[in-house]
């Protein structure tokens, strides 16, 4: 078989129908895509509003009665939201437009994004650990300050502080897992970039 025959055959095979494959339902694909796109926009809006909600909550607590633990926790929360929003903006910045970039630029951008994600998860992990330490320090102080209330209704301490620790533990677990994923992804992008650079370009 000559080289051109081979090419023609590959082209025919490439363009041929795969019998085991079900045909694409275009209207369904289009419908799902548009629904998914709307969901993505909503998710982004909810994330942003969530951040604003956290800021509003701690600001409210600060105005209601600022004491040392609240100031520390509010400061940590602000730092968290600020870092998280800047990460979100950094990662999302031009991400929809960037899909139409040339290959190298796209791969480099993807690598930069996964490195940014890596940094964010590291930061979030440290901050969550700090939160946990603060709550651990704050809990005995609060219990001592309101010992009459907690003695009358001990479930408040269990639910309140237990819940806070559970949430922080879940966050730590999540950030740890995502950090590992981001690390693997960054390494994979690095390999892809090296692979592309090994080709003539």
């Amino acid at each position, binding site marked *: *078989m*000559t*080289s*051109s*025959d*081979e*090419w*023609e*055959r*590959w*082209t*025919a*095979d*490439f*363009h*041929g*129908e*795969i*019998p*085991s*494959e079900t045909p*694409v339902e*275009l209207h369904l*694909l*289009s419908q*799902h*895509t*548009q629904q*998914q*796109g709307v969901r993505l926009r909503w998710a982004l809006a909810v994330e942003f509003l969530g951040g604003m909600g956290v800021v509003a909550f701690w600001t409210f607590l600060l105005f209601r009665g600022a004491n040392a633990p609240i100031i520390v926790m509010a400061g940590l929360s602000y730092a968290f939201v600020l870092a998280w929003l800047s990460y979100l903006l950094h990662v999302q910045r031009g991400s*929809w*437009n960037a*899909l*139409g*970039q*040339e*290959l*190298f*630029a*796209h*791969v480099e951008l*993807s690598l930069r994004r996964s490195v940014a994600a890596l940094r964010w998860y590291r930061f979030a992990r440290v901050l969550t650990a700090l939160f946990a330490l603060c709550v651990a320090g704050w809990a005995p102080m609060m219990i001592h300050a309101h010992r009459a209330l907690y003695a009358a209704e001990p479930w408040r301490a269990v639910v309140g502080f237990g819940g806070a620790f559970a949430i922080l533990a879940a966050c730590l677990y999540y950030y740890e897992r995502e950090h590992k*994923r981001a690390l*693997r*992804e960054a*390494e*994979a*992008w690095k*390999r*892809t970039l090296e*692979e*592309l650079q*090994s*080709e*003539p*370009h």
Partner: protein
Amino acid sequence: MLCTPSIETVYANSHAKVQLEYENKTHHTAERGHSCSFRPDVGTAKACFFSGSMKRLHCAKDAPHPQLRCGQRRTVEPLEQFRFLRGKETKNQPRCCKEFGTPPTIKNTVLFVPMNEPSWERAKPGEKLQFETVLQRYAASLRRIAFGYARTKHDREELLQELALALWKALPSFRGECSERTFVFRVAHNVALAVATRRRARGEANATDPNETLDGVASEAPTPEEQLTEARRRQLLFSALERLPAGQQQVLMLALEGLSHEEIGGVLGLNANVVGVRLHRAREALRTMIETKAPTAPGENR
């Protein structure tokens, strides 16, 4: 020299519906994403062939259409008809034919009618592309991309959905700086590569599905003597494509899609010469991969 009737395969990509006629008799119609073969049993034909996709027509020196002299390329417009009656075999293949790797054999008389489909490269600078129109126009190509990047059916469906979503996201940013086709392929390959990289990061690259992998295809062959069926050959091709390094895989898939070196360069951000070198290497790699996995058919010299 008169031509010998031969079987011809024609590919219709996502843009074209092609009708093949011989002396006013329709032999076959190729729909989107399908290929078809036809066999003119009588008469002679003028050398005329397609460049792998329906985008361009190449003709021998004596082609009757004044705009289709050898070495010329042009975009085929919807409802444009070309009729070539009576022809002869050309021994010296024109240079333009070699470029596309078309074999130096006589081709058949065809009436080429791309029907009711918009032409290629239609988007003008600043023109907004409609998601549904683009999806419809490139569905077959996107599906092939999904097939080239994902091994299992589930992954392919997921990837196809991701490709559609990426187009939906990216289309508003299209300002006509490049052709519509270049843009769509660029987005699709970028996303497919991102999905493949994420999958690699999750360590799924080595996941096997015996019915769908290259190894599975080869081991399923009843005996080494049996010829691979068309479907099996396709699976083998796509599995081999999926295993190529990213740079080679993309250049090869785009070339098989029917894009010229310049267009591939536009998609990947490379110049045409580099595309040529990469394509050569990719073809070698693909050949090796297929040869090592596929049993040789009887009487076939691979």
